[in-house]
Protein backbone atom coordinates (compact mmCIF):
# COMPACT_ATOMS: atom_id res chain seq x y z
CA UNK A 1 0.00 0.00 0.00
CA UNK A 2 1.10 3.58 -0.73
CA UNK A 3 3.25 5.40 1.80
CA UNK A 4 1.84 8.70 3.08
CA UNK A 5 3.44 11.77 1.51
CA UNK A 6 2.40 14.08 4.34
CA UNK A 7 3.20 14.01 8.00
CA UNK A 8 -0.41 13.70 9.10
CA UNK A 9 -2.03 12.52 12.30
CA UNK A 10 -5.06 10.34 11.67
CA UNK A 11 -7.53 9.69 14.50
CA UNK A 12 -9.65 6.54 14.31
CA UNK A 13 -12.81 6.24 16.41
CA UNK A 14 -12.82 3.06 18.50
CA UNK A 15 -16.39 2.61 19.74
CA UNK A 16 -17.13 0.16 21.31
CA UNK A 17 -13.70 -0.56 22.77
CA UNK A 18 -14.25 -4.13 23.94
CA UNK A 19 -13.45 -5.63 20.57
CA UNK A 20 -11.82 -4.08 17.54
CA UNK A 21 -14.29 -4.74 14.76
CA UNK A 22 -13.02 -5.50 11.29
CA UNK A 23 -14.42 -2.14 10.13
CA UNK A 24 -12.04 -0.44 12.59
CA UNK A 25 -9.11 -2.60 11.42
CA UNK A 26 -9.91 -1.34 7.93
CA UNK A 27 -9.85 2.27 9.14
CA UNK A 28 -6.47 1.71 10.79
CA UNK A 29 -5.12 0.15 7.57
CA UNK A 30 -6.47 3.06 5.53
CA UNK A 31 -5.26 5.59 8.10
CA UNK A 32 -1.67 4.37 7.77
CA UNK A 33 -1.71 5.31 4.06
CA UNK A 34 -2.50 8.90 5.08
CA UNK A 35 -0.28 9.40 8.12
CA UNK A 36 0.38 8.23 11.67
CA UNK A 37 -2.66 6.58 13.27
CA UNK A 38 -3.91 7.12 16.80
CA UNK A 39 -7.19 5.91 18.29
CA UNK A 40 -9.82 7.68 20.37
CA UNK A 41 -12.22 5.89 22.68
CA UNK A 42 -14.98 6.62 25.20
CA UNK A 43 -14.26 3.59 27.36
CA UNK A 44 -11.29 1.50 28.44
CA UNK A 45 -10.07 -0.77 25.65
CA UNK A 46 -9.92 -4.48 26.51
CA UNK A 47 -6.58 -6.30 26.65
CA UNK A 48 -7.38 -8.01 23.34
CA UNK A 49 -8.27 -4.67 21.78
CA UNK A 50 -4.95 -3.16 22.88
CA UNK A 51 -3.02 -6.07 21.40
CA UNK A 52 -4.79 -5.65 18.10
CA UNK A 53 -4.26 -1.89 18.05
CA UNK A 54 -0.55 -2.50 18.65
CA UNK A 55 -0.41 -4.94 15.76
CA UNK A 56 -1.99 -2.29 13.56
CA UNK A 57 0.58 0.33 14.51
CA UNK A 58 -1.34 2.41 17.07
CA UNK A 59 1.00 3.78 19.75
CA UNK A 60 -1.53 5.92 21.57
CA UNK A 61 -5.18 5.48 22.44
CA UNK A 62 -6.82 8.63 23.78
CA UNK A 63 -9.49 7.71 26.30
CA UNK A 64 -12.07 10.39 27.05
CA UNK A 65 -12.84 11.29 30.65
CA UNK A 66 -16.43 12.46 30.54
CA UNK A 67 -18.41 14.47 33.10
CA UNK A 68 -20.03 12.10 35.63
CA UNK A 69 -23.57 12.57 34.31
CA UNK A 70 -22.51 11.45 30.85
CA UNK A 71 -20.67 8.27 31.76
CA UNK A 72 -23.72 6.00 31.52
CA UNK A 73 -25.95 5.35 28.53
CA UNK A 74 -25.70 9.01 27.52
CA UNK A 75 -22.11 8.55 26.39
CA UNK A 76 -23.45 6.88 23.25
CA UNK A 77 -25.33 10.02 22.14
CA UNK A 78 -23.82 11.30 18.94
CA UNK A 79 -23.39 14.80 20.40
CA UNK A 80 -21.22 13.30 23.18
CA UNK A 81 -19.15 11.24 20.74
CA UNK A 82 -18.79 14.40 18.64
CA UNK A 83 -17.46 16.39 21.60
CA UNK A 84 -14.93 13.61 22.24
CA UNK A 85 -13.79 13.59 18.62
CA UNK A 86 -13.47 17.37 18.49
CA UNK A 87 -11.52 17.50 21.78
CA UNK A 88 -9.22 14.68 20.59
CA UNK A 89 -8.49 16.52 17.34
CA UNK A 90 -7.56 19.66 19.30
CA UNK A 91 -5.44 17.64 21.73
CA UNK A 92 -3.47 15.77 19.07
CA UNK A 93 -3.60 18.42 16.35
CA UNK A 94 -4.97 15.69 14.08
CA UNK A 95 -5.58 16.28 10.39
CA UNK A 96 -7.99 13.45 9.64
CA UNK A 97 -10.78 11.72 11.57
CA UNK A 98 -11.98 8.31 10.39
CA UNK A 99 -15.06 6.53 11.74
CA UNK A 100 -17.15 3.56 10.63
CA UNK A 101 -20.39 4.13 8.70
CA UNK A 102 -22.86 3.54 11.54
CA UNK A 103 -25.82 5.85 11.97
CA UNK A 104 -24.44 7.28 15.22
CA UNK A 105 -20.92 7.77 13.87
CA UNK A 106 -22.22 9.71 10.85
CA UNK A 107 -23.91 12.21 13.15
CA UNK A 108 -20.91 12.36 15.46
CA UNK A 109 -18.50 13.01 12.60
CA UNK A 110 -20.76 15.73 11.15
CA UNK A 111 -21.17 17.43 14.54
CA UNK A 112 -17.43 17.27 15.19
CA UNK A 113 -16.90 18.75 11.73
CA UNK A 114 -19.24 21.60 12.66
CA UNK A 115 -17.33 22.23 15.88
CA UNK A 116 -13.94 22.16 14.15
CA UNK A 117 -14.80 23.85 10.88
CA UNK A 118 -13.76 20.63 9.16
CA UNK A 119 -14.97 19.32 5.81
CA UNK A 120 -17.04 16.16 6.13
CA UNK A 121 -17.55 13.20 3.80
CA UNK A 122 -20.14 10.62 4.77
CA UNK A 123 -19.74 6.96 3.78
CA UNK A 124 -16.68 7.09 1.57
CA UNK A 125 -15.85 3.86 -0.25
CA UNK A 126 -12.20 4.90 -0.41
CA UNK A 127 -9.94 7.62 1.01
CA UNK A 128 -6.78 8.97 -0.58
CA UNK A 129 -4.93 12.24 -1.14
CA UNK A 130 -4.62 14.33 -4.29
CA UNK A 131 -1.41 15.85 -5.63
CA UNK A 132 -1.93 18.98 -3.52
CA UNK A 133 -2.25 16.91 -0.38
CA UNK A 134 -6.01 17.36 0.00
CA UNK A 135 -7.92 14.43 1.44
CA UNK A 136 -10.18 12.85 -1.19
CA UNK A 137 -13.16 10.59 -0.50
CA UNK A 138 -14.62 8.45 -3.26
CA UNK A 139 -18.22 7.31 -3.15
CA UNK A 140 -20.64 5.05 -4.95
CA UNK A 141 -23.92 6.92 -5.32
CA UNK A 142 -27.36 6.59 -6.90
CA UNK A 143 -27.75 2.92 -6.01
CA UNK A 144 -24.18 2.17 -7.04
CA UNK A 145 -24.62 3.54 -10.57
CA UNK A 146 -22.22 6.51 -10.29
CA UNK A 147 -18.72 7.01 -8.89
CA UNK A 148 -17.82 10.36 -7.37
CA UNK A 149 -14.74 11.88 -5.79
CA UNK A 150 -14.80 14.87 -3.45
CA UNK A 151 -11.89 16.68 -1.93
CA UNK A 152 -11.86 18.32 1.45
CA UNK A 153 -10.70 21.93 1.18
CA UNK A 154 -10.28 22.63 4.91
CA UNK A 155 -7.25 21.76 7.06
CA UNK A 156 -9.10 19.05 8.98
CA UNK A 157 -11.07 16.30 7.22
CA UNK A 158 -13.63 14.08 8.96
CA UNK A 159 -15.00 11.01 7.22
CA UNK A 160 -17.11 7.94 7.77
CA UNK A 161 -15.97 4.99 5.68
CA UNK A 162 -18.00 2.03 4.48
CA UNK A 163 -17.05 -1.51 5.44
CA UNK A 164 -15.05 -3.49 2.85
CA UNK A 165 -13.22 -0.38 1.62
CA UNK A 166 -9.84 -2.10 2.08
CA UNK A 167 -8.53 -5.45 3.27
CA UNK A 168 -7.30 -5.06 6.87
CA UNK A 169 -3.53 -5.45 7.14
CA UNK A 170 -1.43 -5.29 10.31
CA UNK A 171 1.47 -2.83 10.35
CA UNK A 172 4.91 -4.03 9.24
CA UNK A 173 6.11 -3.77 12.81
CA UNK A 174 3.88 -4.06 15.86
CA UNK A 175 4.16 -1.38 18.57
CA UNK A 176 3.29 -1.15 22.25
CA UNK A 177 0.03 0.72 22.78
CA UNK A 178 -0.41 3.23 25.61
CA UNK A 179 -3.73 4.54 26.88
CA UNK A 180 -3.78 8.24 27.73
CA UNK A 181 -6.74 9.94 29.38
CA UNK A 182 -8.01 13.37 28.39
CA UNK A 183 -10.80 15.47 29.82
CA UNK A 184 -13.79 16.26 27.65
CA UNK A 185 -16.48 18.83 28.36
CA UNK A 186 -19.76 18.51 26.55
CA UNK A 187 -21.75 21.65 25.80
CA UNK A 188 -25.18 21.85 24.22
CA UNK A 189 -28.65 20.54 24.65
CA UNK A 190 -28.90 16.77 25.03
CA UNK A 191 -31.89 14.44 25.27
CA UNK A 192 -32.06 12.02 28.22
CA UNK A 193 -31.48 8.35 27.46
CA UNK A 194 -34.21 6.64 29.50
CA UNK A 195 -33.38 3.10 28.42
CA UNK A 196 -30.85 1.33 26.25
CA UNK A 197 -30.46 -2.32 25.30
CA UNK A 198 -27.50 -3.23 23.17
CA UNK A 199 -28.20 -5.39 20.15
CA UNK A 200 -27.04 -8.96 20.60
CA UNK A 201 -25.59 -10.36 17.41
CA UNK A 202 -25.80 -13.92 16.16
CA UNK A 203 -22.21 -15.05 16.79
CA UNK A 204 -22.51 -18.17 14.62
CA UNK A 205 -22.59 -16.05 11.50
CA UNK A 206 -20.48 -13.14 10.24
CA UNK A 207 -22.11 -9.72 10.71
CA UNK A 208 -24.10 -8.48 7.76
CA UNK A 209 -22.10 -5.26 7.22
CA UNK A 210 -18.75 -7.00 7.22
CA UNK A 211 -19.42 -10.45 5.71
CA UNK A 212 -17.58 -11.61 2.59
CA UNK A 213 -20.71 -13.45 1.42
CA UNK A 214 -24.28 -12.25 1.95
CA UNK A 215 -27.43 -14.25 1.23
CA UNK A 216 -30.68 -12.28 1.23
CA UNK A 217 -34.31 -13.37 1.13
CA UNK A 218 -37.30 -11.36 -0.06
CA UNK A 219 -41.04 -11.60 -0.42
CA UNK A 220 -40.56 -14.60 -2.73
CA UNK A 221 -39.66 -16.74 0.31
CA UNK A 222 -43.28 -16.35 1.37
CA UNK A 223 -42.13 -16.33 4.96
CA UNK A 224 -40.00 -19.47 4.86
CA UNK A 225 -36.37 -18.42 5.37
CA UNK A 226 -35.34 -22.10 5.87
CA UNK A 227 -33.76 -22.54 2.41
CA UNK A 228 -32.04 -19.12 2.73
CA UNK A 229 -30.45 -20.15 6.04
CA UNK A 230 -29.51 -23.60 4.75
CA UNK A 231 -27.73 -22.12 1.76
CA UNK A 232 -26.09 -19.39 3.87
CA UNK A 233 -24.73 -22.03 6.26
CA UNK A 234 -23.35 -24.09 3.38
CA UNK A 235 -21.37 -21.10 2.02
CA UNK A 236 -20.60 -19.43 5.39
CA UNK A 237 -22.62 -16.29 4.69
CA UNK A 238 -24.43 -13.62 6.67
CA UNK A 239 -28.19 -13.44 6.12
CA UNK A 240 -30.19 -10.33 5.24
CA UNK A 241 -33.60 -9.51 3.80
CA UNK A 242 -35.62 -6.89 1.95
CA UNK A 243 -37.60 -4.24 3.79
CA UNK A 244 -40.84 -5.94 2.74
CA UNK A 245 -39.69 -9.23 4.30
CA UNK A 246 -38.75 -7.42 7.52
CA UNK A 247 -42.06 -5.54 7.63
CA UNK A 248 -43.76 -8.96 7.31
CA UNK A 249 -41.81 -10.06 10.37
CA UNK A 250 -39.90 -12.83 8.57
CA UNK A 251 -36.41 -11.54 9.43
CA UNK A 252 -34.91 -8.72 11.47
CA UNK A 253 -32.43 -6.85 9.28
CA UNK A 254 -32.82 -5.52 5.78
CA UNK A 255 -30.39 -4.44 3.13
CA UNK A 256 -30.90 -1.25 1.19
CA UNK A 257 -31.00 2.48 0.99
CA UNK A 258 -32.56 2.83 4.44
CA UNK A 259 -31.24 -0.43 5.85
CA UNK A 260 -27.79 -1.98 5.98
CA UNK A 261 -25.32 -1.32 3.17
CA UNK A 262 -23.33 -4.35 2.11
CA UNK A 263 -20.48 -4.65 -0.39
CA UNK A 264 -19.39 -8.29 -0.10
CA UNK A 265 -17.40 -10.42 -2.53
CA UNK A 266 -20.61 -12.34 -3.27
CA UNK A 267 -24.28 -11.36 -2.84
CA UNK A 268 -27.02 -13.93 -3.46
CA UNK A 269 -30.61 -12.63 -3.57
CA UNK A 270 -33.49 -15.11 -3.42
CA UNK A 271 -37.09 -14.11 -4.13
CA UNK A 272 -36.06 -10.45 -4.43
CA UNK A 273 -37.32 -8.27 -7.28
CA UNK A 274 -34.45 -5.77 -7.15
CA UNK A 275 -36.23 -2.48 -6.33
CA UNK A 276 -33.98 0.62 -6.51
CA UNK A 277 -34.27 0.98 -2.72
CA UNK A 278 -32.83 -2.47 -2.24
CA UNK A 279 -30.16 -2.05 -4.92
CA UNK A 280 -28.90 1.05 -3.15
CA UNK A 281 -27.61 -1.16 -0.37
CA UNK A 282 -26.03 -4.01 -2.35
CA UNK A 283 -25.14 -2.92 -5.85
CA UNK A 284 -21.51 -2.37 -4.93
CA UNK A 285 -21.12 -6.12 -4.29
CA UNK A 286 -18.40 -7.69 -6.43
CA UNK A 287 -20.41 -10.64 -7.76
CA UNK A 288 -24.22 -10.57 -7.78
CA UNK A 289 -26.29 -13.73 -8.09
CA UNK A 290 -30.08 -14.13 -7.94
CA UNK A 291 -32.74 -16.83 -7.86
CA UNK A 292 -36.17 -15.71 -9.00
CA UNK A 293 -39.09 -17.51 -10.68
CA UNK A 294 -39.89 -14.49 -12.85
CA UNK A 295 -37.68 -14.47 -15.98
CA UNK A 296 -38.25 -10.68 -16.20
CA UNK A 297 -37.19 -9.88 -12.61
CA UNK A 298 -35.46 -6.45 -12.59
CA UNK A 299 -32.68 -7.77 -10.34
CA UNK A 300 -31.33 -9.77 -13.31
CA UNK A 301 -30.22 -6.46 -14.88
CA UNK A 302 -27.45 -6.15 -12.31
CA UNK A 303 -26.61 -9.86 -11.90
CA UNK A 304 -23.55 -11.74 -13.02
CA UNK A 305 -25.34 -15.06 -12.77
CA UNK A 306 -28.95 -16.00 -12.11
CA UNK A 307 -31.30 -18.95 -12.01
CA UNK A 308 -34.92 -18.67 -13.08
CA UNK A 309 -36.70 -21.05 -10.74
CA UNK A 310 -38.28 -21.85 -7.40
CA UNK A 311 -35.95 -20.56 -4.72
CA UNK A 312 -36.51 -23.45 -2.30
CA UNK A 313 -35.57 -26.05 -4.95
CA UNK A 314 -32.60 -24.12 -6.25
CA UNK A 315 -31.10 -23.08 -2.90
CA UNK A 316 -31.54 -26.51 -1.33
CA UNK A 317 -29.90 -28.28 -4.27
CA UNK A 318 -27.08 -25.73 -4.46
CA UNK A 319 -26.42 -26.06 -0.71
CA UNK A 320 -26.16 -29.83 -1.05
CA UNK A 321 -23.68 -29.65 -3.95
CA UNK A 322 -21.56 -27.07 -2.10
CA UNK A 323 -21.51 -29.14 1.11
CA UNK A 324 -20.35 -32.18 -0.89
CA UNK A 325 -17.72 -30.08 -2.65
CA UNK A 326 -16.40 -28.76 0.65
CA UNK A 327 -16.39 -32.23 2.24
CA UNK A 328 -14.38 -33.63 -0.68
CA UNK A 329 -11.70 -30.93 -0.39
Amino acid at each position, binding site marked *: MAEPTHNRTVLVLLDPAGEVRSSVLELLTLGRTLGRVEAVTLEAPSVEALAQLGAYGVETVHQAELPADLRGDSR*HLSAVVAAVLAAAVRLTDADVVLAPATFGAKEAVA*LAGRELGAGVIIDAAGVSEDDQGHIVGTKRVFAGSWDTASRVTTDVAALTVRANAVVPQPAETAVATEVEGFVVNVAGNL*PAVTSRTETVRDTDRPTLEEAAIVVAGGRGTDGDFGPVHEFADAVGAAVGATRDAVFEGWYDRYIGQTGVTVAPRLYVGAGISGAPHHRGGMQASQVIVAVNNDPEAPIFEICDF*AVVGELSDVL*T*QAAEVIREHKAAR
Partner: protein
Amino acid sequence: MRIAVPVKYVPDINAERKFVDCRVDRDPGVGTLNELDENALEAALRLVESLDEAEQASSEIVAVTVAPPEGDMALRKAFQMGVDRGVRVSDDALAGSDYFGTATALAAAVRRLETEAPVDLVITGMAALDGLGSVVPALLAAELDRPAVTFAKKIALLDGSVEVTRETDEAAESLLAPLPAVLSVADTANRPRFPNFKLIMAARSKEIEAWSAADLGLDPGQVGTAGARTETTHAAPRPEKPAVELVQDKGEGGKALAEYLIRHELV
Protein backbone atom coordinates in the same frame (compact mmCIF):
# COMPACT_ATOMS: atom_id res chain seq x y z
CA MET B 1 -48.43 22.94 18.39
CA ARG B 2 -46.30 24.45 15.66
CA ILE B 3 -44.17 22.08 13.59
CA ALA B 4 -41.65 22.82 10.84
CA VAL B 5 -40.90 19.93 8.47
CA PRO B 6 -37.77 20.36 6.32
CA VAL B 7 -38.36 18.52 3.04
CA LYS B 8 -35.87 17.99 0.26
CA TYR B 9 -36.36 18.07 -3.48
CA VAL B 10 -34.38 15.12 -4.93
CA PRO B 11 -34.16 13.16 -8.18
CA ASP B 12 -36.75 10.37 -8.23
CA ILE B 13 -35.09 7.09 -7.31
CA ASN B 14 -37.06 5.36 -10.08
CA ALA B 15 -35.84 7.80 -12.74
CA GLU B 16 -32.42 7.89 -14.34
CA ARG B 17 -30.44 9.86 -11.79
CA LYS B 18 -27.30 11.64 -12.91
CA PHE B 19 -24.73 14.31 -12.29
CA VAL B 20 -24.18 17.33 -14.53
CA ASP B 21 -20.86 19.14 -14.03
CA CYS B 22 -20.30 17.31 -10.73
CA ARG B 23 -23.66 18.47 -9.33
CA VAL B 24 -26.75 16.34 -8.83
CA ASP B 25 -29.05 16.85 -11.82
CA ARG B 26 -32.19 18.53 -10.43
CA ASP B 27 -34.06 18.54 -13.69
CA PRO B 28 -37.77 19.03 -12.95
CA GLY B 29 -38.52 16.03 -15.19
CA VAL B 30 -36.99 13.69 -12.60
CA GLY B 31 -37.34 15.71 -9.37
CA THR B 32 -39.65 14.80 -6.54
CA LEU B 33 -40.21 15.03 -2.80
CA ASN B 34 -37.63 12.91 -0.93
CA GLU B 35 -39.72 9.83 -0.07
CA LEU B 36 -38.32 9.63 3.45
CA ASP B 37 -39.67 13.10 4.17
CA GLU B 38 -43.16 11.64 3.69
CA ASN B 39 -42.51 9.74 6.94
CA ALA B 40 -41.69 13.07 8.62
CA LEU B 41 -44.82 14.72 7.22
CA GLU B 42 -46.92 11.74 8.31
CA ALA B 43 -45.47 11.93 11.83
CA ALA B 44 -46.22 15.67 12.03
CA LEU B 45 -49.78 15.22 10.79
CA ARG B 46 -50.43 12.41 13.27
CA LEU B 47 -49.06 14.42 16.19
CA VAL B 48 -51.41 17.28 15.38
CA GLU B 49 -54.33 14.91 14.81
CA SER B 50 -53.72 13.43 18.27
CA LEU B 51 -54.42 16.82 19.92
CA ASP B 52 -57.83 18.00 21.11
CA GLU B 53 -59.93 20.14 18.78
CA ALA B 54 -58.96 23.51 20.20
CA GLU B 55 -55.27 22.67 20.08
CA GLN B 56 -55.63 21.34 16.54
CA ALA B 57 -57.25 24.58 15.45
CA SER B 58 -54.28 26.60 16.72
CA SER B 59 -51.72 24.19 15.26
CA GLU B 60 -49.69 24.76 12.16
CA ILE B 61 -47.43 22.53 10.07
CA VAL B 62 -44.99 24.34 7.79
CA ALA B 63 -42.99 22.46 5.16
CA VAL B 64 -39.65 24.14 4.42
CA THR B 65 -37.31 23.37 1.56
CA VAL B 66 -33.93 24.76 0.59
CA ALA B 67 -34.04 24.38 -3.16
CA PRO B 68 -34.18 26.20 -6.49
CA PRO B 69 -37.70 27.11 -7.72
CA GLU B 70 -38.13 23.58 -9.14
CA GLY B 71 -38.31 22.50 -5.50
CA ASP B 72 -41.89 23.78 -5.35
CA MET B 73 -42.85 20.32 -6.55
CA ALA B 74 -41.76 18.88 -3.19
CA LEU B 75 -43.85 21.48 -1.36
CA ARG B 76 -46.87 20.69 -3.56
CA LYS B 77 -46.64 17.07 -2.47
CA ALA B 78 -46.44 18.20 1.15
CA PHE B 79 -49.61 20.28 0.61
CA GLN B 80 -51.29 17.21 -0.84
CA MET B 81 -50.57 15.31 2.35
CA GLY B 82 -52.12 18.10 4.40
CA VAL B 83 -49.55 20.67 5.60
CA ASP B 84 -50.74 24.23 6.15
CA ARG B 85 -47.87 26.23 4.70
CA GLY B 86 -44.98 25.80 2.31
CA VAL B 87 -41.76 27.84 2.40
CA ARG B 88 -39.00 27.68 -0.17
CA VAL B 89 -35.60 29.14 0.65
CA SER B 90 -33.94 29.92 -2.67
CA ASP B 91 -30.96 31.98 -3.62
CA ASP B 92 -28.13 31.74 -6.11
CA ALA B 93 -25.86 32.12 -3.08
CA LEU B 94 -27.20 28.81 -1.72
CA ALA B 95 -26.32 26.72 -4.78
CA GLY B 96 -23.64 24.13 -3.99
CA SER B 97 -24.28 24.12 -0.22
CA ASP B 98 -22.75 21.22 1.71
CA TYR B 99 -24.40 19.70 4.83
CA PHE B 100 -23.34 22.70 6.90
CA GLY B 101 -24.68 25.28 4.45
CA THR B 102 -27.99 23.44 4.24
CA ALA B 103 -28.33 23.18 8.02
CA THR B 104 -27.45 26.88 8.40
CA ALA B 105 -30.12 27.90 5.89
CA LEU B 106 -32.76 25.63 7.45
CA ALA B 107 -31.95 26.95 10.92
CA ALA B 108 -32.34 30.52 9.67
CA ALA B 109 -35.73 29.64 8.20
CA VAL B 110 -36.87 28.10 11.50
CA ARG B 111 -35.70 31.21 13.35
CA ARG B 112 -37.65 33.38 10.97
CA LEU B 113 -40.77 31.27 11.65
CA GLU B 114 -40.09 31.78 15.33
CA THR B 115 -40.44 35.53 14.91
CA GLU B 116 -44.15 34.85 14.23
CA ALA B 117 -44.71 32.32 17.03
CA PRO B 118 -42.68 29.56 18.74
CA VAL B 119 -41.85 26.40 16.76
CA ASP B 120 -42.23 23.43 19.13
CA LEU B 121 -40.86 20.73 16.90
CA VAL B 122 -38.74 20.43 13.79
CA ILE B 123 -39.40 17.02 12.20
CA THR B 124 -37.13 15.77 9.40
CA GLY B 125 -36.75 12.59 7.37
CA MET B 126 -34.00 10.11 8.34
CA ALA B 127 -32.00 10.76 5.16
CA ALA B 128 -32.19 12.45 1.80
CA LEU B 129 -32.24 9.70 -0.82
CA ASP B 130 -29.86 11.57 -3.16
CA GLY B 131 -26.85 11.83 -0.86
CA LEU B 132 -27.92 9.57 2.03
CA GLY B 133 -26.13 11.72 4.58
CA SER B 134 -28.43 11.40 7.59
CA VAL B 135 -26.61 14.29 9.22
CA VAL B 136 -28.64 17.43 8.52
CA PRO B 137 -31.08 16.75 11.41
CA ALA B 138 -28.27 16.58 14.01
CA LEU B 139 -26.57 19.66 12.53
CA LEU B 140 -29.83 21.57 12.47
CA ALA B 141 -30.41 20.76 16.14
CA ALA B 142 -26.92 22.03 16.97
CA GLU B 143 -27.51 25.24 14.98
CA LEU B 144 -30.76 25.84 16.85
CA ASP B 145 -29.28 24.69 20.18
CA ARG B 146 -32.10 22.19 20.66
CA PRO B 147 -31.87 18.52 21.64
CA ALA B 148 -31.87 16.07 18.73
CA VAL B 149 -33.79 12.83 18.86
CA THR B 150 -33.05 11.12 15.59
CA PHE B 151 -34.15 7.98 13.78
CA ALA B 152 -37.41 7.80 15.78
CA LYS B 153 -39.58 4.76 15.36
CA LYS B 154 -42.23 5.52 18.01
CA ILE B 155 -43.05 9.09 18.95
CA ALA B 156 -45.15 10.27 21.90
CA LEU B 157 -45.87 13.75 23.27
CA LEU B 158 -45.73 13.85 27.06
CA ASP B 159 -46.55 17.12 28.65
CA GLY B 160 -43.94 19.43 27.24
CA SER B 161 -41.59 16.68 26.14
CA VAL B 162 -41.24 14.26 23.29
CA GLU B 163 -40.44 10.61 23.95
CA VAL B 164 -38.98 8.48 21.22
CA THR B 165 -37.93 4.88 20.81
CA ARG B 166 -35.44 3.92 18.14
CA GLU B 167 -33.50 0.92 16.89
CA THR B 168 -30.07 1.63 15.49
CA ASP B 169 -27.41 -0.88 14.44
CA GLU B 170 -26.03 -0.85 17.97
CA ALA B 171 -28.97 -0.68 20.34
CA ALA B 172 -32.66 -0.19 21.07
CA GLU B 173 -33.11 3.06 22.97
CA SER B 174 -35.70 5.37 24.49
CA LEU B 175 -34.91 9.07 24.47
CA LEU B 176 -36.71 11.92 26.15
CA ALA B 177 -36.30 15.57 25.17
CA PRO B 178 -38.04 18.72 26.36
CA LEU B 179 -39.69 20.82 23.64
CA PRO B 180 -38.61 22.62 21.55
CA ALA B 181 -36.67 19.76 19.93
CA VAL B 182 -35.53 18.40 16.58
CA LEU B 183 -36.81 14.97 15.57
CA SER B 184 -35.87 12.77 12.63
CA VAL B 185 -38.20 9.94 11.68
CA ALA B 186 -37.14 6.46 10.55
CA ASP B 187 -38.84 4.85 7.56
CA THR B 188 -40.15 2.17 9.92
CA ALA B 189 -42.13 4.74 11.97
CA ASN B 190 -45.27 4.91 9.87
CA ARG B 191 -46.80 4.41 6.47
CA PRO B 192 -47.31 7.78 4.78
CA ARG B 193 -50.92 8.48 3.76
CA PHE B 194 -52.07 8.78 0.17
CA PRO B 195 -53.45 12.24 -0.57
CA ASN B 196 -57.23 12.38 -1.03
CA PHE B 197 -58.95 14.19 -3.89
CA LYS B 198 -59.94 17.17 -1.75
CA LEU B 199 -56.35 17.82 -0.63
CA ILE B 200 -54.99 17.35 -4.15
CA MET B 201 -57.40 20.01 -5.42
CA ALA B 202 -56.68 22.36 -2.52
CA ALA B 203 -52.91 21.96 -2.98
CA ARG B 204 -53.12 23.50 -6.44
CA SER B 205 -54.12 26.91 -5.22
CA LYS B 206 -51.91 27.08 -2.10
CA GLU B 207 -49.35 29.82 -2.15
CA ILE B 208 -45.68 29.02 -1.66
CA GLU B 209 -43.68 31.59 0.30
CA ALA B 210 -40.24 32.26 -1.19
CA TRP B 211 -37.48 33.55 1.09
CA SER B 212 -34.03 34.67 -0.04
CA ALA B 213 -30.69 34.45 1.76
CA ALA B 214 -30.96 38.17 2.52
CA ASP B 215 -34.48 37.74 3.95
CA LEU B 216 -32.98 35.29 6.45
CA GLY B 217 -29.90 37.36 7.18
CA LEU B 218 -27.62 34.65 5.82
CA ASP B 219 -23.99 35.55 5.18
CA PRO B 220 -23.37 34.50 1.54
CA GLY B 221 -19.83 33.47 2.49
CA GLN B 222 -21.15 30.87 4.94
CA VAL B 223 -23.42 29.00 2.54
CA GLY B 224 -23.43 27.68 -1.02
CA THR B 225 -20.22 26.98 -2.90
CA ALA B 226 -18.47 29.82 -1.07
CA GLY B 227 -19.01 28.22 2.34
CA ALA B 228 -18.63 24.58 1.27
CA ARG B 229 -15.75 22.66 2.81
CA THR B 230 -15.79 19.86 0.26
CA GLU B 231 -15.76 20.01 -3.50
CA THR B 232 -16.86 17.27 -5.86
CA THR B 233 -14.13 16.95 -8.47
CA HIS B 234 -15.28 13.86 -10.33
CA ALA B 235 -18.59 12.20 -11.13
CA ALA B 236 -18.99 9.48 -13.74
CA PRO B 237 -21.45 6.68 -14.40
CA ARG B 238 -20.09 3.23 -13.66
CA PRO B 239 -19.36 1.06 -16.67
CA GLU B 240 -22.21 -1.28 -17.56
CA LYS B 241 -21.95 -4.86 -16.44
CA PRO B 242 -21.71 -7.62 -19.04
CA ALA B 243 -25.05 -9.37 -19.62
CA VAL B 244 -26.20 -11.83 -16.97
CA GLU B 245 -25.57 -15.54 -17.39
CA LEU B 246 -29.17 -16.77 -17.04
CA VAL B 247 -30.01 -20.42 -16.33
CA GLN B 248 -33.55 -21.82 -16.47
CA ASP B 249 -34.13 -24.37 -13.70
CA LYS B 250 -35.26 -27.66 -15.21
CA GLY B 251 -34.19 -29.70 -12.22
CA GLU B 252 -30.48 -28.83 -12.30
CA GLY B 253 -30.63 -25.09 -11.51
CA GLY B 254 -29.22 -25.47 -8.01
CA LYS B 255 -26.37 -27.54 -9.32
CA ALA B 256 -25.63 -24.91 -11.98
CA LEU B 257 -25.58 -22.23 -9.27
CA ALA B 258 -23.21 -24.26 -7.09
CA GLU B 259 -20.93 -24.95 -10.03
CA TYR B 260 -20.81 -21.26 -10.96
CA LEU B 261 -19.75 -20.36 -7.44
CA ILE B 262 -17.16 -23.16 -7.26
CA ARG B 263 -15.77 -22.34 -10.72
CA HIS B 264 -15.27 -18.69 -9.71
CA GLU B 265 -13.79 -19.68 -6.35
CA LEU B 266 -16.48 -17.78 -4.47
CA VAL B 267 -17.13 -20.57 -1.99
